[in-house]
């Protein structure tokens, strides 16, 4: 029996548009489980990113609840949300969004220090370890503008897990990368998941979707499909790809 890490009840998100309302998320009920690599797919405008940001507390839901640790994130005050982002949640963005005047090392270490859960030396140690894991130790003192997009995204991944978050949110993390860098980033995420990291990732890239242990399909703001997958094994990628493609076709993707 999997343990629920985050759940949504009757989640709705609407935007005002041309005097009317556009319903992006409609009454979504969802449970995310500990240790899952959950991937959300869907056509453009289906509400994937909105779902991710609403679940993570980066955006406020119009109605409904997002329960984490028996608390409703949707109704949480700003200070508590900040604390949540600091320790329990990690974020990876499509455009990396590293702080431009901090070195790669500092970009990783600053959220660790901000969290104050770990001693300073431990944060530094973990940052070094992550830099090594991500293969960017040799450029740790470089500024983001001095490294490639792939290296920036690896740094962003290291930053997102510095505080060992319970849940990692990733918004199309390979969207701005070339093929080689995409594979590297996906390998890193898969590796993290296999070490027990829960991940919720939004993507429209089928190669990224292959890494999932659970696939969600979003259509018109509703969850239209939910499929469980075994843990990713590179040697079985071809079979997995066929399975996922078939499922996506059934979703009319």
């Amino acid at each position, binding site marked *: 029996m999997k343990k629920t890490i985050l759940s949504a009840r009757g989640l709705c998100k609407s935007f005002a548009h041309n005097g009317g309302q556009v319903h992006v998320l409609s009454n979504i009920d969802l449970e995310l489980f500990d240790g899952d690599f959950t991937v959300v797919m869907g056509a453009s405008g289906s509400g994937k990113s909105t779902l991710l940001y609403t679940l993570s507390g980066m955006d406020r839901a119009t109605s409904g609840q997002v329960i984490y640790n028996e608390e409703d994130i949707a109704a949480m005050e700003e200070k508590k949300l900040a604390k949540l982002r600091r320790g329990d949640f990690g974020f990876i963005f499509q455009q990396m969004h590293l702080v*431009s005047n901090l070195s790669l090392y500092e970009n990783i270490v600053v959220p660790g220090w901000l969290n104050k859960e770990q001693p*300073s030396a431990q944060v530094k140690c973990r940052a070094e370890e992550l830099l090594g894991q991500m293969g960017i130790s040799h450029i740790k003192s470089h*500024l983001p503008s001095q490294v490639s997009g792939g290296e920036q995204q690896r740094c962003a991944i290291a930053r997102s897990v510095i505080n060992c978050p319970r849940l990692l949110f990733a918004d199309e993390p390979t969207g701005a990368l070339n093929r080689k860098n995409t594979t590297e980033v996906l390998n890193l995420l898969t590796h993290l998941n296999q070490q027990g990291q829960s991940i919720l990732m939004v993507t429209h890239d089928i190669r990224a979707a292959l890494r999932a242990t659970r696939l969600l399909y979003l259509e018109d703001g509703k969850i239209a499909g939910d499929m469980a997958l075994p843990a990713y094994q590179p040697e079985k990628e071809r079979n997995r790809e066929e399975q996922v493609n078939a499922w996506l076709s059934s979703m009319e993707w």
Partner: protein
Amino acid sequence: MAILNGMVRQDMEIITLIKANICRKKGSFIGITLLMVIISMSLTAIISVQDNCRDGLKAAYEQTDAADVTFSIKKQDLSADMLSSLKEHPLIGRIRVFDAIQATEIKCGGITEQTGWELLKYRKEFKIVNDAMNAYQKEPATALKNGEIYITQGTMTRMKCQIGDSLRFFISGREYSFQVKGIVVEPMFGSSTIGWKQIFINDEDFEKLRADEDAQKREGKTALYSMVSLYKAAGCALTDGKFKRRINLDTGIIDRASVSLTKEMSEHYTNLFMEIIFAILLVFILFLFLVVLITMAHSIGVGIEMDYTNIGILKSQGFSKNKIRAVWILQYLLAQAAGAFAGMVLAIPLCNVLGGLFWPITGILANKNISAAKSLFLISVILLISAFLILMLTRKIARISPIRAISGGRSEIYFDSRFQMPIFRNWLSASLALRQFTSNRRKYVGTIVIVSILIFFMLTVTLIGNVLNSKTAIQSMGGLYVECAMDFTEKVNDKQLANIEKTIEKYSKIKKKYYLTRRYLSVNGEEIYCQIYQNPEVVPVLNGRAPLYENEIVVTEIIADELDLKIGDKVLVTHGDSKKEFIVSGLFQSINDTGLTFVMPLKGAKIFGVESVDYAGYSLDSPQSSAKITAELNNIYDGILKAKSTEGGGIMEDTYTIAINCMKAVIYIFSVLFALVVVVMVCNKTFIQERNDIGIYKALGFTAVNLRIQFAVRFFVVALAGSLLGSILSIYFSGRLLNTLLRNMGITSFAVQFTPITFFVPIMSICLCFLLFAYLAARKVKKVEARELVME
């Protein structure tokens, strides 16, 4: 009309763009407008008040038929021959002579003044001021009754008296009491900056005083004087000073006078204080304009970077670089022009307030007109300079390539340095703020310069304030500040002086003592105020040494410049029929007679009939004992001296202190206002530039309060850096600036006294304003959701 319509149609796109830009960047334009309001308002008010005071004085001179040279001479010294030689002098057009009675002392309440007071018959040409003290009385003045007097505002300020108060006059030892009936405008001696004063009484009282004086025969002494007014002949092109000197060289009459004043010098003394205050404020405004230019430069620089893509789009749509630059120039000039206009309107009430501030000093009723033409001219110059600057700053618009701009190919806009300021866990927000500052220093250079200018002026006015309250500073600038002063009514010898000192030292140690008398003596034909010291070694000299020998004098730098003298030069000093050659042994400074003064030792002055000093002043170690000392001295030496205690009194007259404090307040308030506008403008731009980073920080778990503190700390650091620069500038240049501005007052070497408090108050005011205003300006951080910031 058709052509105009065509032009309007042609330029509609420019108007549309300007409207759109102003709406989009209203914060910046409001900031520029506010800064211009302050500049235009102050400039217009200062110029208008200056013109009003100058015009008011000139009108009063005309109204009272003020002479080019006025002097007071003992009636017995103005012989018929002397008078006829004056009348026949080719440079003199006409002469007016009025009888006067000189009082040696005047008292009101606890205030006693000994400087020359002359009582004259009231003449209708001196207009009476109304009860509100803001206009002349409309109805003709009722005749003065016996025992009533009219005084000038200068007398009122000095004696701290009101209409209805009684003034006691001492004439040849006799005491008379008069009641103040009203205030008259007498422009020649009326200002409180001029020591000599005229008091007006009715004809009957005057004749009674004259009869009393005539009845009391005193050998060689008299209180009967003649006030002589000399008017230049038509066609005489000499300045008033040269005219006076020429008359004196030809007749020697000024040497015999007890006081003389030219209209030019009267004008100089009357407007002196106002001119100095306004000179300081005008320099301040000039620098504020520089602040506006820097702020505008920053706004344009950042604006172009942020509008990079839009400019590229406009270019791709066929807008020429000149058209785009025209839009930028017009939008900023519009903001400035709006501020300038509003400032001119607001200057009207300010003019009334400022004009009233100087009435107690000048004693002249000034109009409340706005010098519109002059102000408009200066504001046009400001706008022209601004237009030129904008033209220069918008040159980079020409270099923007539409393709590169649209494809987002601009270089990193918000980060220009690789300087790595370390980040610490314990001071995370503060060290991140420092990093943001050090990694983008260029962006803050303008703000640092602005703060340094504001701090420089705040420190400069604080220095003036320090001097007002500093005995040592006043003394080092040649001023006499003593707690115990006395005038000798009889000749005193050295033994008596030693006994007086012993009496004083029973209560307090004497820190400094001054024994002197004063005379007007001619130096190379120029009548100059001379301070004759029995102990000239106490005179603080700037160069050379004190006049220790009987043939030595020290002169002020102003006299040295006027008479082209340097140390070692010989000068001829004359008085009446006596003359003697002296050597200039040094230079000193003095605020007496606005620096037109010199010092000689008593032993050197004997040739001019000066046998002893008539004044002693003591600076005490324990000032609080001065009241007891003066009481005892007046008791022991009754009939020989009149001692008075100045303990507890201000160093400077209240009126001057108020005016200087007003100037200080204006500079402090404007500095804080400028700090506010600049911080808000720069913060808003920075916020827009760093919106993405703020979003990232929020996503990482920084709270809005964390981020606002970072913002505030960064601007606090900027303010601190600017304060440091401003302090260094002040240490090097405040003294020089004040020497230039206060030279007219006689100060050529300002006693700059920096104390920790001098720096602390202005620096903390500005830094805390920056901290607070930056924190408030960064409130937008709170209102924006993290996702909204990240997903641009």
